[in-house]
C-alpha cells in the first residue's frame, strides 16, 4: 500500500455543526469510489450493527480515498475526522497534527459561526493549509459573495479560490478534490529514518484489542515489528497494520506520510494515549514527536444507580466504556444519601454528558449524577495534605488550615465587539485579567487566570451566548492556589444530603445558597407533607424554602371503559418516579442533583 509520498494528502474537514461536514465527506467517498451510493447506507448500517454487537464505537475517523487527479496522477487522500468541543481540544489538536491541510466548510446561508472560527484557529496554529469550501449553494438564499467577504475579513484567509459546492447535490466535488491535491502540501518525513508514528485516536475491538489510529511521520510500521510507546516505554509486537476504506483493510506496511491503523494485541487502551509517539524497539527514534501531554480528568462527579440493585451493572458498564475511553476514570464511593456508586473523572462537562448518555442509552441504566466538582487540595491542622474530588469529603471548618483549588489560564479568542461582554463574564467568575493580544487581523485574544471550578459549570455556554457564539475557549491548568472557599450544605426535610453539598467561594455562598434552595423547591415534586429545604454554611442556615404538600391528586374524570388510558396515565406518573431517588420519605428527581448547574448568574 505504500505509495510515493508526494502523492499523499492528509486532510481534515472543519465546519460548524450542520454546515454539511458529513454530507461533503460522503460525497468525497462516493466520488472517489470508496463506496457506491448504495453501499454508503449499507456499509454504515453494517458498522452500526457491529458496533452494537461488540459494544464498541467504530469511528470512521481516518478514511483512505484514491483520487485520479486531472494531472494524471493517482493520489492517496487520507480524510481524518475531528471532534469539535473544548473538552476534546487536545484530541482535536492531535488529529490536526496528523494533517497537512483542512477543508473549511462554511454554510452559504449561515456564514461563519463560532465553531468554524475556533477550529480554524486550531488549524492555523498547526500550520495547516486551509481550503475554504462554501457549501449549500443550491439554497435559494445562499450568498457566497457575502461568505467570501466574511472569510477574508473575519478569518483573514484569501477566499478568491473558495470552492462553491452543494454537497447535497454533489456539485463541486471534483473541484474540492482538485484543490486538495493541488494546494495541500505532501507530507514531509523520511521513510528511511527511525519510526515515529503519532497516535491520534484509538478504539477497542474485542477481537483485535486496541486499534490505534496513527500517522506515520518518519520511517515505516509493519507487521511483526517490535514497537514501543515512547511515553510509557511499553513494548508490543505489531499484529497487523492497515487502512480504513472505510472498513478496515489489513495491509503490509504503513510508511512515512501515511495514515492508518495498527493492532498489537493491546488490551489496555490506557497504553495508547493520544499524542504519544510509537517507535521501534530496535533503532528507536531519539526524540518523541512534540506536543504529547497526558490528559487528566478535570471534572469529577458522582454517578449512582437510581436503583441500588443496578450497582453491579453500572460497574460493568463503566469498565466497558473505559476500554474505549482512557480519559475517563472512576472509583467506588459511598454517599449517605445515594448509597453505593462511583466518583468519575471527565475531561469536561460535555465529556461527562456523553458518558452519562451512553450509560443510560446503551446500558439502560437509570442514573443519578451529582453536581460536577473539581479536585480540591486540603491541608489539615496537622499539616497533612490531600486531594478531594468530592465536596462531601471536605472536613468541617476549623479542621483544616488551608483549602486550595485548581486554577487555569484561560485563553479566549473573540471578535472585538464582544470584548466587554467577555471581560464582564470573566470577572463574575473570579477571573484575573492577564493579557490581551491581537493574533493578526481582528483576532483579539484575552487571557485570564481563573479558578477551574468557575469554568466547569456553565461558563462555556455563557461565553457562547454572550458573544453570539463567536468566542472560542481553551484553557490549561496552572496549579493550585488558596481560595476563601466554604462548603455549602443542603438539608432536605432537616436532613443534610451529602450528594447536594458543594464548595463555593465565600462571597458567593449566600447568593448561591438562596438560588439553590429556590431551584430545589421548583424541582422536587410536591409530596404528601411540607418539606423544608435549607442551605447552610457550617451550622448557620443561610436560606430556606418550603415545598408545600400536595393536597389534591385525584383523577375525578369519567373515561368510560378506557381503563387502559387510566392505567397508562398512572404508569406514566410512576415512570417519572422511577427516575427519582428515594431519600427517606422523599422522592428527589435526578435534576435536583444537578440544580447547582441551573443557577443563573445575576
Amino acid at each position: 500500500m505504500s505509495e510515493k509520498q508526494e502523492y499523499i494528502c492528509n486532510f481534515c474537514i472543519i465546519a460548524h455543526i450542520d454546515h454539511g461536514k458529513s454530507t461533503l465527506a460522503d460525497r468525497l467517498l462516493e466520488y472517489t469510489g470508496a463506496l457506491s451510493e448504495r453501499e454508503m447506507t449499507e456499509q454504515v448500517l453494517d458498522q452500526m450493527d457491529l458496533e452494537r454487537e461488540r459494544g464498541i464505537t467504530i469511528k470512521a475517523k481516518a478514511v483512505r480515498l484514491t483520487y485520479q487527479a486531472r494531472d494524471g496522477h493517482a493520489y492517496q487522500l487520507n480524510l481524518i475526522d475531528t471532534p469539535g468541543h473544548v473538552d476534546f481540544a487536545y484530541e482535536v489538536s492531535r488529529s490536526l497534527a496528523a494533517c497537512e491541510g483542512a477543508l473549511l466548510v462554511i454554510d452559504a446561508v449561515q456564514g461563519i459561526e463560532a465553531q468554524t472560527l475556533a477550529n480554524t484557529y486550531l488549524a492555523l496554529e498547526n500550520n495547516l493549509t486551509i481550503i475554504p469550501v462554501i457549501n449549500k449553494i443550491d439554497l435559494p438564499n445562499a450568498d457566497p459573495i457575502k461568505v467570501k467577504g466574511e472569510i477574508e475579513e473575519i478569518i483573514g484567509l484569501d477566499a478568491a479560490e473558495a470552492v462553491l459546492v452543494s454537497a447535497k447535490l454533489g456539485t463541486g466535488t471534483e473541484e474540492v478534490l482538485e484543490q486538495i491535491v493541488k494546494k495541500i502540501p505532501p507530507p514531509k518525513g523520511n521513510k528511511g529514518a527511525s519510526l515515529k508514528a503519532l497516535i491520534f485516536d484509538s478504539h477497542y475491538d474485542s477481537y483485535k484489542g486496541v486499534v490505534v489510529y496513527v500517522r506515520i511521520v518518519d520511517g515505516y510500521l509493519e507487521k511483526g515489528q517490535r514497537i514501543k510507546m515512547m511515553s510509557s516505554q511499553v513494548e508490543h509486537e505489531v499484529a497487523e497494520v492497515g487502512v480504513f476504506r472505510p472498513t478496515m483493510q489489513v495491509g503490509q506496511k504503513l510508511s512515512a506520510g501515511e495514515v492508518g491503523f495498527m493492532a498489537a494485541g493491546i488490551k489496555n487502551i490506557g497504553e495508547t494515549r493520544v499524542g504519544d509517539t510509537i517507535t521501534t524497539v530496535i533503532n528507536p527514534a531519539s526524540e518523541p514527536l512534540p506536543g504529547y501531554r497526558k490528559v487528566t480528568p478535570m471534572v469529577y462527579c458522582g454517578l449512582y444507580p437510581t436503583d441500588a440493585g443496578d450497582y453491579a451493572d453500572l460497574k460493568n458498564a463503566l469498565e466497558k466504556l473505559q476500554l474505549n475511553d482512557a480519559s475517563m476514570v472512576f472509583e467506588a464511593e459511598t454517599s449517605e444519601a445515594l448509597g453505593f456508586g462511583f466518583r468519575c473523572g471527565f475531561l469536561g462537562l460535555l465529556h461527562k454528558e456523553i458518558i452519562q448518555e451512553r450509560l443510560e442509552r446503551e446500558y439502560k441504566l437509570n442514573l443519578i449524577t451529582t453536581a460536577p466538582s473539581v479536585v480540591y487540595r486540603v491541608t489539615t491542622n496537622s499539616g497533612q495534605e490531600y486531594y478531594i474530588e468530592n465536596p462531601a469529603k471536605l472536613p468541617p471548618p476549623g479542621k483544616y488550615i488551608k483549602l486550595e483549588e485548581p486554577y487555569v489560564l484561560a485563553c479566549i479568542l473573540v471578535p472585538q465587539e464582544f470584548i466587554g461582554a467577555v471581560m464582564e463574564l470573566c470577572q463574575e467568575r473570579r477571573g484575573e485579567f492577564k493579557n490581551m493580544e491581537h493574533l493578526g487581523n481582528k483576532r483579539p485574544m484575552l487571557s485570564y487566570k481563573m479558578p477551574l471550578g468557575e469554568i466547569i459549570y456553565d461558563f462555556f455556554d455563557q461565553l457562547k451566548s454572550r458573544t453570539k457564539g463567536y468566542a472560542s475557549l481553551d484553557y490549561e491548568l496552572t496549579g493550585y492556589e488558596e481560595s476563601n472557599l466554604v462548603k455549602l450544605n443542603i438539608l432536605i426535610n432537616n436532613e443534610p444530603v451529602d450528594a447536594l453539598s458543594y464548595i463555593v467561594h465565600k462571597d458567593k455562598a449566600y447568593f448561591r445558597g438562596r438560588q439553590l434552595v429556590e431551584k430545589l423547591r421548583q424541582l422536587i415534586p410536591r409530596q404528601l407533607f411540607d418539606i423544608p429545604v435549607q442551605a447552610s454554611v457550617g451550622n448557620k442556615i443561610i436560606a430556606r424554602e418550603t415545598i408545600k404538600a400536595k393536597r389534591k391528586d385525584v383523577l375525578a374524570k369519567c373515561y368510560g371503559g378506557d381503563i387502559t388510558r387510566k392505567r397508562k396515565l398512572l404508569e406514566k406518573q410512576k415512570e417519572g418516579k422511577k427516575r427519582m431517588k428515594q431519600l427517606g420519605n422523599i422522592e428527589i428527581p435526578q435534576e435536583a442533583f444537578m440544580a447547582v448547574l441551573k443557577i443563573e448568574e445575576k
Partner: protein
Amino acid sequence: MGIGLYIHIPFCLKKCNYCDFISYRINPTLVKAYLTVLDKEMALYSNSLPPEEKQLETIYIGGGTPTCLRANELYEVLKACRYYFTWPPEIEVTVEANPGTVDLEKLTVLRQAGVNRLSLGVQTDSDDLLQVLGRQHTFEHAVEAVYLARQAGFGNINLDLIFGIPGQTITSWRECLVKIVNLSPQHISVYNLQLEEKTPLWEKVKSGQLKTCPEETELAMYEQAIEFLKDNNYLQYEISNFAQTGYQCRHNLRYWRNISYLGLGLSAHSYLPPYRFNNPENINTYFNCLTEGKLPVSQVELISKPVEMQETVFLGLRLRQGLDLTAFFDRFGCRIEDVFTAQLKKFLPLGLLEIVNSNLRLTKNGLPVANFVFREFV
C-alpha cells in the same frame, strides 16, 4: 353472568370547549351511515359471542350526545340490542342526554324503547360558566329537561356536574349543589374539570384569557360536595359518584369491579377477559372495517394476571366501600397482602388506606390524593 353493553354515539350539536373525546358535529347523512354500520357491528358480535356473553346486564348509550339523534333512530338502536342480544327484565338501560336536545316526545320514545335511566349533562347552574365550558344550553334548559324526564316516566335520573371551572367560586359551587339537590335526582356525578391539551379551554388558559381555580379551592369544592351531598342523603359510592340508596349506576360499577363489558361504536372500549380491546378512533377506518364485514378492532391487549390484579386494585379503590378482599382472593387465588405487600406497608400506616370489614379502601384523607396511592399499584 352477563355483560355490560356500551354504545358510543359520536355526535354533538357542537363540541364543548373542554372535551377531548371523539365527536362529530351532527349531520343526518353521517348519522344514517353510522347507525347502519353500528347495526352490522352488533350483528357480527351476535354471531360470534357465546350465549353467556350476549346476556345483557346493563346498557349504556353514551357520547357525544346520544340525544342529538332523532327519537326513532335511538329507538332503532335499542331495538337492535334486543334483537342481537338477550335482554332480561331487570336490565339497567342508561342514555346520556344533554339539556336542549330532549323534548317530551323523545323522552317518551326512549322510555318505550326500554330506557330506565337518564343521565343529564347539567354541569353547572351558572349560565356564565356554561358559556365558559362552551355548552349549548342554559341551566333553565337543564331544569326543564329534568321535569320532562319525570313526566316521561323516568324514575332514575343522574345529573352530571363539573367543579373547578375557571371563574367558579366556593360560594357559587355551593349554590349549584343546593339547586341540584332541589331537583331531587336519584344520582349525581361530580367531576373535577380536567384541562386536556389542545382543547379550546386549554388554549384559553394557556394564553391567560382564563384562570384555573387554585388547587386549594378545588379541594375545598370537592370536600364540600362530599359533605353537602351526604347531608342530603346522597352517599358517595365512588370518587366522583353519589346516589340515593339503591340507585348506584350498575353499568359503571362493572368498570370499577373490573368485570366484562362490550363497547360498540367509534373508539369504544371493551373488556372481555382476558382481553381489552378498542375500536378505531378514525371514523373512516371504523366504517371500512364494517363495510368489509370485519370487526373494527384496532388494538387488543391481553391482560396478564399481574396486570389484572393491578387494575382490580386501582379500580376497586375508587369505590368508597373499597375492594372486597375475599372477592380478590376468590378471583386470583392469592391474598392481596402477599401481592402488594410493600404498598400496604406504606399506605396503611400513613393513613391513606384502611381495611374495614375485610374491604381495602381509601381513607377520608386518602381520597383527595387517590392517584398518589393508585400509581404505586401499577
